[in-house]
């Protein structure tokens, strides 16, 4: 093995019943290298990571580690012992233990916990990595970003040779991401090999040295970052040349009805118990607008207040000029408002239920407790939308949890479209799903608007919002700080409004 190499995976196979998850995949990592692992959902990234961390057993191939030779990894403990550490998107620490304990539990020898020594070491490490937490603090009381960093601190302290970061940035805001990148660069200096999995292309080009692309469980190739421009990267991930990623707004045109200027929904002084300042908001018929701002700026909280998902504390709400009361989601639904929530897994899918039941859920609830759909009707609804949105599922009876992320999102979208809402709220509909589906969803939004539906679209990716929205409400620190439309809709203008420069 090359001297610089820390990890060499060759010809990895992993077969699940009826699915070939990985086929003859090679992957190699050098010392002090940040290596992006890219691919669409279902391309095999997670499977490869799980094979490497011992969550899954490989069905074929070899793994070679510097200083260890050929290794067999049977469990996460094995991986840890060999110097392979992983930080996952979901925090995999124990919220009921202290920060220090989370950094040291499960490793080291001896039977006794030496609290004094452990806390001292932890504090030293926290200081060194500039993490704003104290060793004796209960982890559950830290912010998600800090918890994420504690997880990395743990990995760093274990003298890991290979650090795997599996979508660590998806719940962090920009500043926190920067901090994380700083940490990653420091580690790189120290000679740690880092495998970085993310959906954000920007981030890949900001920190990574190399990219390995997977598609359909097979290796597409390994590239130096300089040799692979973005467009080509996307093309490699999708397996086809993409030309419609850049501009789709022009093609669709906008809603041309007589009532195009009519305000469908209007809120004044709306406030919820989620800690946002009272805000005013309106949307016109056939309009696509959006809330933008950093994560935690209160954009999700705003739309949740509109839908009644959080407890509404005050303000008046009008639907088509008529004053209404929205205290719970059902009130909003009755008034023709639909809401696709931010967190698909937690708030969206009902995992064990079939695709059909998931699709009819909202309309069924709206129809009423005493009027269940007949089986034929439910099937007809489901089949219609499976076809319409091109949902890839074995059948309408398949449990939704066995679908890929993008298809799950389409099912949830189908659920709300079936309700034929007048006003549709989409909170991060494209997060964590593959590029192809992202474009599908963006196109769909514009189509719907053209037909007269009003849509509020929220996304962490500014360019996505620029592509779809005609008006943006900018938020900062849980307050609405500006509104942009027309000429002002540029990346720079948004950034400066978010940062607060234009307010001066």
């Amino acid at each position, binding site marked *: 093995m090359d001297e610089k190499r820390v990890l060499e995976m060759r010809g990895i196979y992993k077969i699940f019943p009826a699915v070939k998850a990985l086929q003859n995949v090679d992957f190699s990592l050098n010392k002090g290298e940040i290596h992006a692992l890219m691919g669409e959902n279902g391309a095999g990234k997670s499977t490869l990571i799980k094979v490497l961390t011992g969550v899954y057993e490989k069905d074929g191939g070899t793994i070679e580690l510097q200083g260890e030779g050929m290794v067999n990894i049977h469990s*996460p*403990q094995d991986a*840890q012992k060999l110097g392979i550490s*992983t930080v*996952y998107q979901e*925090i*995999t*620490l*124990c*919220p*009921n*233990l*202290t920060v220090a*304990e*989370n950094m040291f*539990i*499960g*490793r*080291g020898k*001896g*039977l*006794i*916990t030496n*609290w004094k020594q452990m806390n001292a070491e932890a504090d030293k490490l926290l200081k060194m990595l500039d993490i704003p937490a104290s060793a004796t*603090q*209960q982890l*559950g*009381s830290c912010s998600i970003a800090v918890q994420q960093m504690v997880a990395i601190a*743990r990995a760093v302290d274990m003298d890991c040779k290979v650090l795997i970061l599996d979508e660590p940035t998806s719940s962090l805001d920009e500043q926190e991401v920067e901090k994380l990148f700083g940490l990653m660069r420091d580690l790189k200096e120290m000679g740690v090999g880092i495998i970085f999995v993310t959906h954000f292309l920007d981030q890949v080009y900001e920190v990574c040295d190399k990219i390995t692309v997977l598609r359909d469980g097979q290796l597409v190739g390994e590239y130096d970052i300089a040799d692979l421009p973005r467009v080509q990267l996307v093309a490699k991930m999708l397996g086809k040349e993409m030309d419609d990623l850049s501009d789709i707004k022009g093609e669709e045109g906008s809603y041309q009805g007589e009532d195009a200027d009519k305000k469908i929904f209007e809120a004044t002084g709306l406030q919820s118990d989620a800690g946002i300042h009272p805000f005013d908001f309106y949307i016109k018929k056939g309009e696509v607008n959006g809330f933008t701002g950093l994560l935690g700026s209160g954009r999700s909280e705003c739309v949740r207040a509109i839908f009644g998902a959080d407890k509404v504390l005050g303000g008046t709400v009008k639907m088509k000029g008529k004053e209404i009361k929205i205290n719970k989601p059902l009130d909003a639904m009755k008034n023709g408002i639909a809401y696709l929530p931010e967190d698909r897994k937690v708030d969206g899918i009902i995992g064990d239920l079939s695709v059909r039941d998931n699709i009819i859920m909202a309309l069924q609830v709206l129809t009423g407790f005493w009027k269940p759909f007949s089986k034929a009707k439910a099937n007809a609804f489901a089949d219609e939308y499976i076809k319409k949105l091109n949902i890839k599922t074995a059948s309408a009876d398949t449990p939704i949890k066995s679908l890929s992320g993008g298809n799950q999102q389409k099912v949830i979208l189908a659920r709300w479209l079936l309700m034929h809402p007048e006003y549709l709220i989409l909170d991060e509909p494209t997060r964590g799903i593959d590029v192809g589906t992202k474009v599908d969803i963006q196109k769909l939004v514009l189509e719907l608007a053209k037909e007269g539906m009003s849509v509020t679209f929220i996304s962490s990716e500014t360019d996505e919002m620029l592509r779809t929205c005609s008006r943006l409400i900018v938020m900062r620190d849980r307050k609405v700080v500006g509104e942009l439309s027309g000429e002002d809709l540029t990346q720079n203008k948004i950034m400066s409004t978010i940062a607060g420069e234009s307010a001066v």
Partner: protein
Amino acid sequence: MKKKIKLNDSNLLLVITIVIFTLMYLGAIIFQGGGFTKPQMFFNQFNNNAALIITACGMSVVMITGGIDISVGGVVALVSMCCAVYLDNPNGNGTIGGSILIALGIGIAYGIVQGFLVAYLDIQPFIVSLAGMFFARGMTTIVNTAPFNVENEKFKALKLTKVTIPFIGSINKKGEFSPAYVEIGVIVALLIVILLFVVLRWTKLGRCFYAVGGNKQSALMLGINVRRTKFLSHLICSTLAGIAGYVYFLHVGSGSASHATGMEMQAIASSIIGGTMLTGGVGNIIGTLFGVLSLSTIQNIVSLAGLDQAWWTGITIAAMLGIFLIIQSVVMAQRKKA
């Protein structure tokens, strides 16, 4: 600048329990006086509940790890019956040592089987220990149907052994000082409380119990052997149930299928009152001890208040459990918001 010390979940619930217990006991002294000021009354709470303290401690360990074991009452009954039959056999050659071995054997065997089923076969602990309870109760009647007292001399001597407590006692009607005493079982119980407290606080294994109870998936990712940890929690709980069975046997001196009826529920109640969360990850052995004492104090208050119809005990315990559950739920909801 002084940093405000934030109590973690375990300590917060512990503090609530101790405060409430103290208030309750002081209230009892003020309003009912009499008995509650006598030291022996206080120590009798230990004498009568030594077995419960031990089972409750075991229960706390399992609950902290995120499981539950409702077989403990059955195990206590089975142990006392088996030991009674062994000591009382017509040959008369039953020894104390032998009976202790039987008790430990039953406890450990239970722990291994239940622990294996829960930890390595991923069967829900509730179902496993439900079957365990059925089995223990059934076996007890199969071993011997009728309840009977043990007449073994050595055992009787051991049963009557009292440990007097120096300097504490009361002056009886004749004006003599009679020191307060506790039974051997209480010593065993207190040793176990201390031992478990140390294990949970200062050993790696103890912290693993908390980690697994806090988040099983995370614990696995942190490199903890989750299955072994779960297995050990059940092993500890059942072994303690075996020991508790012997302590119980020592206290009552008889074997009966109806012994320790509902003890599992009392143990769970004590743990919860003592601040152990059934969701796992939060709890404290000292709290559990206070949980048992709170329960028995309430029972004493009820019976001293003249409400000695059988049903009042059940109703007051249930009411108390309810109050503590609601306190826990409200406190936790408040914390999540903060």
